[in-house]
């Protein structure tokens, strides 16, 4: 076929460049599935304990909203699948999207595509190679996850179906990534749009599952979960995934046929010929560079939180139907049904905001490696003011995101059930997470100061906080490991009372991390 010459060579290049990256993704997700699965056997040693948990979990709106439909939660295998679900869903979708965008728009933006396309390489070869590699990685992740689950007390047949469903979801997101890479001129924008679609897909599925209606079919995650592993198991929903993959690939070919190398489908507009008063100092520059990102994130977090909040009515109704569970939760210190749900959602919002905080703190590093920091530091701007300008935006932006999340959650909760006082209340409570989120930003600054080549570890830190916060109790981690996550030290509001001790210490730790990072930044070569 013309237009695809050189696909195989480019696919090999992508595999060669990403052999470490892909190995980490694949072993990370399947490895955690394996250990989490096996930990479940120790957490629930008796059939009785499984029964008790299953009865409560099947009714937990938070669990349904974040993981998926409650299936076979009165069995160990069902609990295992339910617990690893969120991680495998995020793991395979993010891996597929990152992989495709990195090798298409990312390469194009760096100008390397031009060099490659000048060779005997077809117009569609780059996209095809990226799609093939990402899809193969998704399939491999499916195989590894199936193996991991089979090794963790899930029946072999069900493990295979679950692995296939995971791979199917990865295929869909690889296709989505490929289309977005055609539309946007910048890899960052394409990734941002992909995150928004992943968020929307999660929300549609969450709402559909909590309400128990057909809305789940509007979401690719819903297709993959429609396989009903351990329930009425069926393979045909995966056909939808494969068809979607083919349609998206064909759409990407159409889109890329309509644009030039380096161009997007959205044309750039002219801007101001002179700088406005904002662009006069380090803070103004940082604000200008990040404000669009902050606004987009805040809108996204607000919408996600509002969607969570709108579920509270359904959650309350579940509680009314099951007075026994309400009693059980009170007894185990989990507060009211709705409060427990809100608490989990507030943690989820904080973890979401952490994504912004880390990427914002890493802007220092991005500015350095792109060579732009050099231009700025060769002027009268000192390193201290440069760092302070960027980090101010990180701190204020993160606080804005948390308040937006609290407002969204409180607004929707207030409208459906709680009354008007919920909006300021939940926004204030959400701010208790600010120090914890900022300490991840602090970790990023620390790494940038001393080991700039390792800044990616800050993302791993966020991943670790997610695993500790979400799976920690089940993995039966030693307390000191849980204590490593700053989120462990935030009171579980609104179930627990708001206290300032934990957040204050965490804030101190965040400040210390930034100070240590600055000590490195001020004395090292820049750019290095």
């Amino acid at each position, binding site marked *: 076929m013309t237009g695809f010459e050189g696909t195989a060579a480019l696919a090999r290049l992508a595999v060669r460049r990403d052999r470490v990256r892909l190995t980490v993704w694949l072993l990370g997700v399947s490895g955690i599935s394996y250990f989490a699965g096996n930990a479940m056997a120790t957490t629930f040693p008796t059939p009785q304990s499984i029964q008790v948990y299953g009865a409560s979990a099947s009714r937990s709106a938070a669990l349904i909203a974040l993981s998926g439909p409650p299936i076979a939660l009165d069995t160990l295998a069902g609990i295992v699948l339910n617990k690893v679900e969120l991680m495998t869903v995020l793991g395979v979708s993010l891996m597929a999207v990152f992989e495709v965008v990195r090798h298409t728009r990312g390469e194009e933006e760096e100008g390397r595509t031009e060099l490659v396309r000048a060779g005997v390489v077809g117009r569609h070869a780059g996209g095809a190679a990226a799609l093939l590699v990402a899809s193969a990685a998704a399939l491999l992740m499916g195989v590894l996850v199936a193996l991991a689950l089979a090794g963790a007390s899930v029946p072999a047949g069900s493990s295979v179906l679950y692995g296939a469903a995971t791979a199917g979801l990865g295929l869909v997101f690889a296709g989505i990534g490929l289309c977005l890479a055609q539309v946007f001129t910048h890899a960052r924008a394409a990734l941002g749009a992909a995150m928004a679609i992943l968020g929307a897909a999660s929300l549609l599925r969450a709402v559909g599952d909590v309400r128990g209606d057909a809305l789940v079919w509007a979401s690719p995650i819903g297709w993959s979960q429609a396989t009903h592993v351990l329930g009425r198991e069926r393979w045909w929903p995966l056909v939808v995934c494969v068809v979607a993959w083919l349609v998206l690939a064909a759409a990407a070919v159409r889109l890329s046929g309509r644009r030039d190398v380096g161009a997007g489908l959205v044309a750039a507009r002219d801007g101001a010929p002179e700088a406005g008063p904002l662009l006069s*100092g380090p803070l103004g520059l940082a604000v200008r560079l990040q404000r669009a990102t902050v606004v987009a994130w805040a809108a996204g977090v607000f919408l996600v939180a509002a969607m969570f909040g709108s579920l509270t009515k359904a959650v309350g109704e579940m509680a009314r139907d099951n007075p026994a569970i309400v009693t059980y939760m009170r007894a185990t210190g989990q507060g009211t049904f709705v409060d427990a749900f809100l608490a989990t959602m507030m943690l989820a919002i904080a973890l979401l905001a952490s994504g912004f905080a880390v990427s914002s703190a890493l802007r220092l590093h991005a500015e350095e490696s792109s060579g732009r920091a*050099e231009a700025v530091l060769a*002027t009268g701007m000192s390193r201290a003011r440069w760092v302070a300008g960027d980090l101010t935006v990180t701190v204020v932006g993160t606080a804005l995101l948390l308040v937006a999340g609290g407002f969204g959650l409180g607004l929707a909760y207030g409208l459906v059930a709680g009354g008007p006082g919920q909006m300021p209340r939940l926004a204030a409570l959400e701010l208790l997470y600010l120090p914890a989120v900022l300490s991840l930003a602090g970790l990023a600054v620390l790494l940038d100061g001393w080991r700039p080549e390792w800044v990616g570890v800050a993302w791993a830190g966020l991943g670790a906080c997610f695993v500790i916060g979400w799976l920690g109790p089940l993995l039966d981690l030693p307390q000191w490991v849980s204590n490593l996550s700053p989120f462990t030290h935030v009171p579980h509001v609104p179930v627990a009372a708001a206290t300032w001790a934990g957040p204050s210490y965490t804030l101190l730790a965040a400040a210390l991390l930034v100070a240590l990072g600055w000590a490195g930044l001020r004395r090292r*070569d820049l750019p290095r």
Partner: protein
Amino acid sequence: MTAVISTRGLVKRFGSTVALDGLDLEVGPGEVHGFLGPNGAGKSTTIRILLGLLRADAGEVRLLDGDPWRDAATLHRRLAYVPGEVNLWPNLTGGEVIDLLGRLRGGLDPKRRAALLERFELDPSKRCRSYSKGNRQKVALVAALASRVELLLLDEPTAGLDPLMEAAFEDWVRNGAGDGTTVLLSSHILSEVEELCDRVSIIRAGRTVQTGSLTELRHLTRTTVVVETVGDADGVASVPGVANLRHRDGKVGFDVDSDHLDEAMSYLAGLQIRSLVSHPPTLEELFLRQYGDRVDITPVPGRKAAR
């Protein structure tokens, strides 16, 4: 008068790579100083040390009577820099970048800004992502030249510019230098350096191998002579100081040390000269000689060039 830039024995290592190995550089006030060397010789590293972006491992460095590492931001108000590779914020316009960098330096001259935009034919309302390499270079140049500063650090400033724009740049620097601005110009375009610079330093593998005014450097080296005579001129090779004898189109060409030019001319006079062209070494020849290469050489077979 004290030097504007002065480094002595500058050493910089990156891991096991030695980028600078005892570099000396001296640039006086008001001087336009050419900074030459092949790729990887350490030109950009030197400039980044002068900017306090990198810290020297050993040696002394003074810039505008200050310590570039310690007083970086203060000193930067008095200088402007054009980096070798210009990267700009894709979502800001060229005009915004020019104003931003100017303001961060402590202000720019709006009249100069307008004049430069016109001279370089740059549209300031385009976003940086849509600029070509040459246009990005222009943005950096306008940003640097629009401020009234004492020192310009220019790292291959005309890379990517077309010849018309190169000429515009040369014009501007000549006029700026008239104001007493000191310029350190790192460049590969030797004609540009020859055109603009009072003095040059040639560096190689992190060391200064030659420094001085162009006249001094030329004096140290040889004049090229191409001559047509009635008699056989090959014997000129035996005159001391003559090297690289070659034949072309019935003419004989050779290089001669400036000190021995007189003797060579006396020898040739006896052979009835029909035509004679002589020119001082071009900077290109100076430069290539430093690196052991030769321009346009056809050595006479069987004869070893005298050195």
